Structures are given as C-alpha cells and as structure tokens.
C-alpha cells in the first residue's frame, strides 16, 4: 500500500464510520460497532505510519494549491505520528465505553452523538497529519464545530449556554489571533509548510517574535492556557465519553499539539532559544499550573475537578514548548501520550461511577470504594500516573520537563513542578481516600454497566505497563527534536 494512500485511508475512515452509523441508525448495535471498527482500522494505520516514521519513511500527499505557496496537503511529522497514535488507539476504547455509558445513562439522540464523535476524530487525525499551518487551521475549526453538538448534547439551558461559551471562545480566539498570526507568518515567509528547524529564522523580525508567540498561544484556545480556559470546565456538561476522549485527549491535545508543532516546525526551537521570546510564556504556564491546581482542590464535582486538572496538565506541555530546549520539548511531546492515558482513565472512571451509582460529587463517594473496587483500582492507577509516581508512565514526562527547566536554568520552574505534583496528590487521591472511608449508611442502588469498567482498567494498566516501554515512543520523538 502506498504511503499517500495510507494517509487518505486513515483520514476518511472516521468519516465512513460516521456515514455507516447514520445509515444503520435504526440498529443500535450495528450503529455503535462502526466506532470500534473505525478505531481499529485507524489504529493499525497510525501504528504503521508510526513505525514508518521511525524508519525515516515519508508520508505525504498534496491535493491542490489554495494560494501562493500554500497547498492543501498532508505530511506526517514525528509529532503528528504520536498524536494520531494516541487519538486512534484511545478511540477504540472510548467507542466501547461510549456504548456502555450512553445506554447505561439512557441518553437521547445517540445516533447524532456517534456521528459527530467520529467526525471529531476525523478532524483530530487530519490535524495530526496536516502538512502546513493552514490545513491545520481548517481542521482545527472543523474539530471545534463538530464537537459543538456533543457539548450541547443534552439540549437544556445549561448545556446550551455551555455550548455557546465553548464555541465563542474557541472560534473567537482562533479568528482574532490564530488566523491573523498565520497570515503574518505567510506574509513574512511566503510559506506555511512544516519544516524541521522552523521557517521563521532570518525571515521574521526577532523583536516581534514574542508578540507572534502570544497571538499563537492565545489563538489556539484549545490549549486552554489562562485566561482562555473557561470553555473547558463549561464543556463538562457533555456526556462523559466526550469529556474523556475529546476534552482529555483529542480536542485539548489538538490544541497543545498545534502549539508544539508551531514551536518545533514553524518558529523553530533554535530561533526561540536565541531570542528568548517565549520566556514570558514560561511564567504564564507556571501560573496556570498553580492556579488551576488550587482551583481543582476547591471543586467538589469530580468532573470539574478533573477539568481543572486537565488545564493544569496542558500547561505542562505549553511550558515545555516555551522552554524550547530539547529535553523540555521531549518531555512536552511525551506528556501528550502520558497525560492522555492517565486522564482518559480518570474520566472513564468518573463516568462509570456516574452511570453505576449516579454520583457526581467527591463528598458523596464515601464507602463507594468497597462497592466499586475495580473502578477505584483503575482510578488510582490513572491518578498515580498523572501525579508522576514511578513506575507509571507519567513519571517520564515530568522527569524530562524538570530536566528541561534545569537545562534552561529555570530552577524556580522545577520547584513549581514539584509543588504542583504535591497538589496533584491531594486533589487526585482525595476521592480514593474518601471512597475507602467506611461510613456509608444509605443504600445506593447500583446499575450494572460492565462496558464502562473495562476500558479504564485497560488504560490504567497501560499507564503501568508502558512505563517500561517508554523508549519505544521516545525514540520517535528524539529523532526530530534534538537540535
């Protein structure tokens, strides 16, 4: 199979999954199975591309020219191969989980849900494999629009206003900051292609680079850096499979991925290191990490707490990109994988607890640990990974980030990362501690939903197992980023 065909197949498979789901909308089992099948196909393709990239193969396809120097083209970068691998592998599990959750919670409009879910994955894969910044922007917008129906799924007043907030922040920032920034880069360089080492060196005035970085980081609202983070907690009104796959993996990771890609392939880490234009961003990222951790502590709603935890974790990646040293970039790219695995586990568990026991609040979890041992086990695995305890995969990315900040002689940043881990321990493990306190008087009727239990167990164990295979991923990353 030729390489370019592989890209096309990978990108359109989710669209076909959406189409078939619509065609088979009257047969629930058949309809929902297309998510799993599509996930398997895209996973195999992503894996093949991932290996191909390791062996220096080129995956590239150009469709047509949009305007001078900018084609509608796809080209898989090393970073993109990682992101697509994460998104497609977790799509399989999320599809299984979705079946359990949507039926267990008795949600309406399941067909629409499944369709837009697949379209969102399509957009995420296209972002991962996009060949230039404009193609990335196109699918960035498609991702926003396709997740809007998922956020507003319940169609009540709350979800409607959340959907509006979601859309207005994400589309608004992208049109006000991101698109003009893209135009600016194009006007200065005449191209938008992703190239190793960046395209701005010697073409873009160094004194305006900080400003460009600001336009990009605030324009890519999906990266949820403060103060552009409000949409993420608001989007938690969506059903949990959306929060799990999209707002812990696909959407937010598309955001930080876009920013990483800009830093690595457009601006170029060397240029950034020379001019130190992103040092201010280091501090903003640190502020976001600390502030959202503290807000997370105050949240009693489990999903809201996880949302603020996500904001904090995303800023780790922004931080790594802003530091721009090779170790920090390595840590940031690896954090895409580790955080995705950990956070999807936690969201799966939160949803499973909601479906089986109808509990949303942390303070209501008393004694639930004995009733739902498997879920709590999985939750603990995920939480430990995010905190960064060895031997969980999350420890690697934190390690590299701390090394990166020391490499750039930002000792305070390293300390902040340490403090943030302590805060993580508090707010992520508190639900577990409460779950195993024995004073639950009232009887809670449990609904069986086994399909919501197995996916988090698999991802949770994945956090443990992949710790020992970290090199498998890291090889791919270090190939490009080492400058």
């Amino acid at each position, binding site marked *: 199979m030729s390489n370019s065909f592989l890209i096309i197949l990978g990108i359109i498979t989710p669209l076909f999954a959406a189409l078939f789901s619509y065609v088979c909308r009257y047969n629930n089992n058949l309809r929902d199975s297309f998510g799993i099948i599509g996930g398997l196909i895209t996973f195999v393709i992503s894996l093949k591309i991932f290996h191909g990239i390791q062996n220096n193969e080129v995956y590239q396809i150009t469709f*047509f020219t*949009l*305007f001078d120097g900018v084609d*509608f083209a796809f080209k898989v970068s090393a970073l993109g191969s990682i992101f697509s691998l994460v998104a497609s592998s977790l799509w399989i599990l999320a599809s299984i989980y979705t079946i359990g959750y949507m039926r267990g919670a008795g949600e309406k409009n399941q067909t629409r849900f499944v369709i837009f879910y697949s379209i969102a994955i399509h957009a995420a894969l296209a972002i991962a494999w996009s060949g230039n910044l*404009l193609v990335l*922007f*196109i699918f960035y*917008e498609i991702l926003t629009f396709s997740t809007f*129906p998922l956020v*507003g799924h319940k*169609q009540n007043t709350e979800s*409607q206003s959340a*959907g*509006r907030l979601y*859309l*207005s922040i994400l*589309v*608004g920032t992208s*049109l*006000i*900051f991101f*698109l*003009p920034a893209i*135009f*600016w880069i194009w*006007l200065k360089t005449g191209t938008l292609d992703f190239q190793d080492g960046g395209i701005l060196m010697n073409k873009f005035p160094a004194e305006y680079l900080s400003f460009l970085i600001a336009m990009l980081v605030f324009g890519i609202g999906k990266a949820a850096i403060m103060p552009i983070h409000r949409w993420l907690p608001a989007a938690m009104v969506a059903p949990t499979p959306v929060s799990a796959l999209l707002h812990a993996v696909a959407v937010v990771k598309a955001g930080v991925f876009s920013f990483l890609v800009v830093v690595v392939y457009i601006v170029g880490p060397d240029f950034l290191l020379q001019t130190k234009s992103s040092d201010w961003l280091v501090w903003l990222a640190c502020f976001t990490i600390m502030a959202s951790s503290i807000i997370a502590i105050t949240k009693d709603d489990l999903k809201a707490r996880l949302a603020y935890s996500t904001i904090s974790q995303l800023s780790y990646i922004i931080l790594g990109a802003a530091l721009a040293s090779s170790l920090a970039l390595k840590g940031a790219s690896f954090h895409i994988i580790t955080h995705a695995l950990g956070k999807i586990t936690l969201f799966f568990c939160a949803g499973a607890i909601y479906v089986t026991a109808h509990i949303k609040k942390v303070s209501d979890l008393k004694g639930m640990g004995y009733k739902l041992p498997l879920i709590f086990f999985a939750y603990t695995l995920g939480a430990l990974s995010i905190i960064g305890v060895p031997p969980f995969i999350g420890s690697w990315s934190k390690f590299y980030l701390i090394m990166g900040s020391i490499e750039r002689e930002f000792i305070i940043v390293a300390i902040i990362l340490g403090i943030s881990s302590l805060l993580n321990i508090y707010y992520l493990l508190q639900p577990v501690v409460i779950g195993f306190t024995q004073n639950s008087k009232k009887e809670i009727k449990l609904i069986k939903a086994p399909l919501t239990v197995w996916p988090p167990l698999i991802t949770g164990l994945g956090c443990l197992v992949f710790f020992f295979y970290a090199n498998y991923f890291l090889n791919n990353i270090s190939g490009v980023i080492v400058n």
Partner: protein
Amino acid sequence: MFDIFLDDAPALVVVLPLLISAIIAFMPSKIWPWIISIITLLLHLFLSLHLLKEISVSGLIIYEFGNWEPPWGISFKIDGVNIGLQLLFSIFVLVSTLYSRKIFLNEIDYRDSGKAYSLWLLAVGSLNGIILTNDIFNLFVFLEISALASISLIALGAGQNRKALLAAFNYLIIGAIGATFYVIGVGFAYAMTGTLNMNDLVIQLTQYSDGQLAIFAGMSFMLIGLMVKAAIFPVHIWLPPAYSYAPSAVSTLLAALATKTILYFFVRLLYEVFIIYPSYLSLFLDFVLYPLSLLAIFIGTVIAIYQDDIKKLLAFSSIAQIGYITLAFSLKDHSGVASGFVHIFNHALIKGGLFMAVGYFAILYKDRVTLNSLKGFGYKYPITSFALLICGLSLIGLPLTNGFISKLYLFQALYTNQMYFSIALVAVSSALAVVYFWKIVEQMWFSEIKFKSEKEDAYIYLPIWIVTISIIVFGIYSTPIIEFSNLSADYLISGYQN
C-alpha cells in the same frame, strides 16, 4: 446575421432587458413573463461572454451611441475594470431569475407577475448600464431608473407585509436625496468643464490643475450622492428595511448586485477622474472613507447580532461587508483596490446565497423568518439548510470558502499598508460574525423541536446550490476571481501612478 447584433453587444446588454421589460409588462400570463425573462437573460449572458472575448483581444471597447463621437454623444466603455463585474452580473442575474419564479408565485399576486418581471428586467438593464456607462450624466439616468424599478419591486412585498410600502417610500426619499446630490455635483462639473464624458472630463479638468473650490464642491456632492446610493455608513439607513421587506427574490438581486454596481462606479470615479487632485483624493480616502468603513464594519456587525429578523440581520451584515469593500478601496494602492474587487465578487455570491436560502424559508414558513421560526428547520429542510450553513461559514471567512480568499487578500493589503489597527478590527468583526450566524445555526439544528425531513422544491434549491457550490469552488480555485480583480486594479491604479 448575428454579426450585426454582436457589434452592438455593449448597447444590447442594456437595451435588450429594457425593451423586453416593456413587452412583458402587461402580459396576463403566469409563466410567460418568466420564460421570456430567462431567454432574454440567456442572450444577455451570451452577449457578455462575447464582450469578454472582444476585451481579451482588444483590451478596450468604446461604444458610441448613434455614432455620435464623445464628448458629444453618450458612450459606453468596457475595459479590464468592468468586464469581470459584467460577467458576474450576467451570471448571477440569470441564476437569481431561475430562483425568483417560485418566490414571486408565493409572495405576490400571480396576476402581477408580468409587472414584476417587467420591473425586474428594468432593474437588470439599468444596473448593467451603471456598469458600462462612461458618462456621468448618463449614470444619473441609470441610477434613477434602477432606483425606481427597485422601489417598485420592494413595494411588491406589501402583499406579505405592509411595512414594505414604508421601506419603499424611505428608499424613494433617501435615494432621491442621494441622486439629487449626485446630479448637483454633475451640474458643477458641467458648468466648469462643459463635458459629461468621463475621459473628456479628465482632460478638461487638467486646466484647473491647482484646483478650484467649485470643482471640489462638485466632486464632494457627487461622492456623497453615490455614498447614499451605495449604502455606505452612516447614510445606509434605507438599506436594512428595503432588503428585509422586499420579496425575497428582489432582496437577492439587490443585495448581491445593486450596491455592488454603484460601489464599482464609485471607485472608478475616484481612481479614474478624481485622481487629478491627489491631495483631495487622499483627504477623502483617509479622513472620510477610511474611518467610515471601520465604523461600518464594527457597527454593522454589532447591530446584526441584536437582530431577530433574519433578513434584517443579513441586511445589517451587508452594511458591514460594504464596509470591508470600501476599506479596501480606501487604501490607494494596487493590493487594496484588487482586494476590494475580490470582495465585491465573493460577497455577491455569499449574500446572494444567504438571501436565497432565507427567502425559501420565508415562503415555506409563510411568515417573516425570525430566529424563533427557524427552530428545527435544519432537520425539516436539510438540503437548503446545509447550503445556508456553507454560505454562512463563508461569510465568517473560514478556509476552503471564497470568504476566506477575500479575507486573505484584505489582510494582505492592510498589512502592506501597515494598518495594524484595521487588521485587528477586521479580525474581531469576523469573530463577531460567528455570533450572529451561529444564533441561526443553533435554532436550526439544536433547538428542542424536531421534524421529519420534508420534500424540497428543486426549482429553488438548485439555484441555491449553484451559488453554494461556486462559493466552495472559488474558495479552492480562486484564480479567476483574483485575475479579474487584479485586472481591474491594474487599469485603475495605473492611472494613479502616472
């Protein structure tokens, strides 16, 4: 035999619709006026294509009426500036005439259909005259014919809503004031130079090379008159009610083409004639047109957000979009003028498509289309709704639509002129456009009411989809639009630099 006609093609594109208009005026039939109009406009398109062929060979056609040489006789001029617009005009008029039939049958008494199409062709002929004429007084005549035809067409909306009469009357009064201003300006110019022909005017004006108060007064009168007609903020107030209460087919024609043709003449006057006084020109562009355009963009967008009536919402969005065009024209260089023309083309398609879709909804809903009445329409009429969605995304300016191309070239022009504040404002206003457009989408697809999909009328959704597909095609393959626009800018700006 046809060759005789082809020689007179520049005159025929204007005269043919005007002649046929008189023939079908009292035809009592329901269908014949429409069929005759379609045939006429097919011929019109053929003639326009012939003109394109001629222009690509010779580059310039001056057509002298009755072989009276200018400056004594009236003449039409076709060159690189207006040939693109002529082609767009011809094609779009044909498409909107295809669309108009069902709308007219639903919105006006069928016995009036002869009169309606008579007025329709009258508007078409006179608007085309505005594109081609090379004579400032002849322009006034066409302005008046087109205004009267459009006013009567708007008033036909009275069968649906009596407010159409008020809107038409408003337009009549304000339009008359605008035309009066313009004709006073023409009077000044004629008194000073003794000529009405634009090319001759340029030559005659050079004798007052240091400028004279009467000349400047005349120029100001002409420009203000045209600004009223082109609905440039703040003299736009006739436009929203006129667009929103007219029968939908009429809204489509006016929104897509009427203001565009006047904007074209406006810029032609600025860069071809008034260029003799560069200091006056830059004064007008920098301190009048430029700030007004920014205000139009911002205020038009904000007002649109607060509209409940969809046609009114689109009309206010038009005010903002006209602001984009005049902003581009105020830049005084090639990139600016070219991007203005790009947006003239693209916006004609976008707004035309939007008005077509909303007009269709209006006859299905049998009432004015408000946000509330659109509930669940996305499910009820999926084909048209999807077209509306694409047109709307293009209005916002997302990539792969032609709206994006407009934005790209506008940004580029603003950037080369180092107008960073304007870039920020344009970016913000395109983000605000999301707000008003998404209000529509939310009602259509995400309200609690749901319908089974109903059969849609191919007579109507075909023209809508022709426009919609062209929006996507020109978003991906933008070369034709860019080339026509560059050609226009080449002709206009070459005068500026000499």
